């Protein structure tokens, strides 16, 4: 083998003058520079990766905790159930805000006569606390009349101040008086950060501290399920036909050109197609994961077909010859031998295509999966959002506290991607066969 000129080996001395020496040195310097350019480019690209992930993790990790404030809550029978009936209907429509306000006044007796101070302090507690109290009372009406030290969720501005995401001044949305009280609370150990259940048990909400991902995760799950059940069999069937049965002619060439093109068509175009065909022509419901899944099927089919074809191609021809030699029909040869051998590769390709589909946003926007949906979708026909769409929705929200939630949503999305890709890599490593 011919080796390139190396810098340390003895140089072939063709020219002997000092000019030649200089030229050679310049050439070696150019060589070094060129090499450095390559390394620098890789370093820049990796730097971007680190900055990207770093900025999201540093912003998002705080969203996995939630600030709680401890208050001595008196479940006053007069306020909650003035008639004394203890009926669930009456208990669930009771004024729990009044209960919380009373608890705040008890903690800070000095605000009782000052309406402004009272209003300031009220802003520390989230409206989710009312639901919390209602749940407790409904679960056990006997606690009415007692006083309990309860941890109540803090409001978004208070939460952001405690986490240090917002500045400790009025720009945080809290007044001077409220901040003083917040400091007093945390000095007395009544402020704590606990795991953020709401992020995983709630759906979208107008209140940042109560907004969660459950609806979006379920929506994504339904869409992906539909995408998988449709695109896997169809993709494998198409790949098997093109790889194992089709004769090379104009028709198969046409199919091949189409698949390769569709793989590179912008996904928003598939969104337009889905809007026109599935919503306008077929009249399927708007914002439904069913339509989202159908759109994502069209987006991911070319990828799956191409991956499945590569996997089928990798099965050596003598497997086919042996099967046919023993009297198998072509279809028996494919279903009994070729497909099982190609399956790990096909599955890997499918998982990677699904990982792309879960992050796909644009086609979901045009079919209306961007609505503000508070309920968790019960079926694939109910209005829903999806994880990446939730990221988009929160990212475009004006409330500053949503920045943290958005980053957390991205982290959840990335965790799904990592899990899927890790499965794909594991499958490849475990079942990879070299012939």
């Amino acid at each position, binding site marked *: 083998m011919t080796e390139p000129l190396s810098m340390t080996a003895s140089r072939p001395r063709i020219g002997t003058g000092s000019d030649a020496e200089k030229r050679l040195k310049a050439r070696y310097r150019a060589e070094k520079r*060129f090499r450095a350019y*390559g390394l620098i480019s890789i370093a820049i690209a990796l730097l971007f990766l680190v900055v990207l992930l770093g900025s999201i993790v540093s912003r998002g990790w705080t969203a996995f905790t939630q600030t709680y404030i401890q208050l001595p809550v008196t479940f006053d029978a007069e306020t909650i159930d003035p008639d004394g009936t203890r009926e669930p209907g009456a208990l669930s429509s009771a004024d729990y805000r009044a209960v919380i306000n009373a608890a705040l006044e008890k903690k800070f007796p000095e605000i009782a006569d000052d309406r402004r101070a009272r209003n300031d302090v009220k802003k520390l507690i989230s409206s989710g606390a009312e639901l919390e109290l209602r749940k407790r009372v409904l679960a056990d009406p006997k606690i009415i009349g007692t006083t309990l030290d309860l941890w109540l969720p803090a409001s978004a501005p208070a939460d952001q101040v405690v986490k240090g995401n917002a500045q400790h001044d009025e720009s945080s949305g809290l007044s001077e008086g409220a901040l003083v009280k917040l400091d007093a609370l945390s000095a007395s150990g009544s402020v704590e950060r606990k795991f953020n259940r709401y992020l995983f048990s709630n759906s979208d909400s107008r209140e940042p501290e109560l907004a969660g991902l459950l609806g979006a995760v379920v929506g994504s799950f339904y869409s992906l399920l539909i995408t998988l059940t449709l695109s896997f069999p169809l993709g494998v069937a198409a790949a098997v036909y093109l790889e194992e049965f089709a004769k090379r002619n104009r028709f198969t060439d046409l199919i091949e050109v189409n698949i390769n*093109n569709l793989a590179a068509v912008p996904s*928003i175009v598939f969104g*337009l197609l889905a809007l026109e065909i599935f919503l306008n022509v077929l009249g399927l419901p708007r914002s439904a994961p069913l339509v989202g899944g159908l759109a994502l099927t069209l987006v991911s089919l070319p990828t799956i077909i191409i991956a499945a074809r590569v996997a089928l191609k990798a099965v050596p021809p003598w497997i086919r010859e042996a099967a046919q030699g023993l009297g198998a029909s072509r279809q028996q040869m494919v279903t009994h031998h070729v497909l099982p051998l190609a399956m790990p590769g096909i599955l890997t390709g499918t998982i990677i295509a699904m990982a792309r589909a879960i*992050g796909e946003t644009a086609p979901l926007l045009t079919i209306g999966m961007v609505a503000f949906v508070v309920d968790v979708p019960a079926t694939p026909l109910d209005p829903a959002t999806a994880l990446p769409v939730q990221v988009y929705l929160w990212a475009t929200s004006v409330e500053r506290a949503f920045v943290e939630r958005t980053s957390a949503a*991205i982290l959840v999305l*990335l965790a799904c991607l990592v899990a899927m890709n890790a499965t794909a890599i594991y499958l490849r490593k475990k079942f990879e066969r070299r012939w």
Partner: protein
Amino acid sequence: MQFLTLLLALLLISAAVYRLGARHAVRLSGGTRSLHSLPSYYGYYVALWCGLPALLLAAGWMIFSPLILKSLVMDALPPDTLSLPAARLSLLMNEVKQMAASGDYRYASDEVSRAAAEHYHALHTISFAAMCVASLCVALVGAWYGRSRISPKLRARNAVEGMVTLFLIASSTIAIFTTIGIVLSLLFESLRFFAKVPVFDFLFGLNWSPQTAMRSDQVGSSGAFGAVPLFTGTLLISLIAMAVAVPIGLLSAIYMAEYAHPKFRAVAKPLLEILAGIPTVVYGFFAVLTVAPALRAFGASIGLSISAESALSTGIVMGVMIIPFISSLSDDVISAVPDALRHGSYGLGATRSETIRQVVLTAALPGIVGSVLLAVSRAIGETMIVVMAAGLSAHLTANPLQSVTTVTVQIVTLLVGDQEFDSPKTLSAFALGLVLFCVTLALNVVALNVVRKYREKYD
């Protein structure tokens, strides 16, 4: 959901019938010896006769029954409702359908729609029950027919394999139908748009403000649909993205293919590909929250005013997204250049970098051009980054520090929210989509051809 139950029932019946058919075949021939095919094929044969016609019937019913139901309900509407304008009527029917689907009549706008919704709901229930009965009957009749055809001479395997081949061919033609569907749906809505706005005005007009077309009595009610600012905006952002991605991507590809130690390559290449796996919505968020403010602060420190939605920040982030795309494609073509060319160059005394620049890159040029073209098509069609990070208002400018808007941004903003398929505002999104599809298609075809031609040369 109920439909899913029906599907499940049909599948279960078919599975049961499969066993029936297989056993029946064995019994008829008194053993498997004299059968033409394996017993399982007789099972599949009967199962296909049982399940397929029933499924087709159910699918056809699902597609056509809403149309029939709608016309039945429309016929039953009072005459003064029927004389409403078509747009109002279709709104009413939508409301009726929605109420009937949810079974919630509380929010009916008037008695007529409420009655119609109840009528619709009743008809729908009858229709669904009729469909279930009909398809189950067809399944049973099919199973009986299939079973009666079984004889030891029956070429069950050939019949079953014929059906499977049909399914395989049908699956592989989906790609063609998708393309046809894209072209037809874009073309159809675009033609409706061009009936309202001349093609020439759309392609060469310099003013884009579709949002003004709100009310017919407003000043400037027609809106302005000159798409040139969108095209220039898309080009500007793609150009910036390419200015970032091509040098970085190409140089990393060269280093990976020519210089890197295999161990380094094994670590760095997957890391670079992570950039390609990150959803674009994440890049959009990154652009808005990190890159744009950083650029703004930098601009302020040297006395430049940079817009918060500048083309520069959007383009840079898009470029980062495209880096792995270019680097992995170029890596492939550079690695495909035969070593003989390199050896020849070394033999003449060239250094490595001279060989790469003057021999390898020249040989790989068509492939690299192809990969760059594919990347350009990707940049033009990229949606989420620009939707989040680029501006909404169209400016005709080449200044990268200003905010520009792109074709994809406009498609999304025009279609998110209320869609009215009779206003040029909504229809223009499809015209933009058609332009986008044509441009990316042309780029893809050229790029794929260039890449393929090149590959054939060295294989």
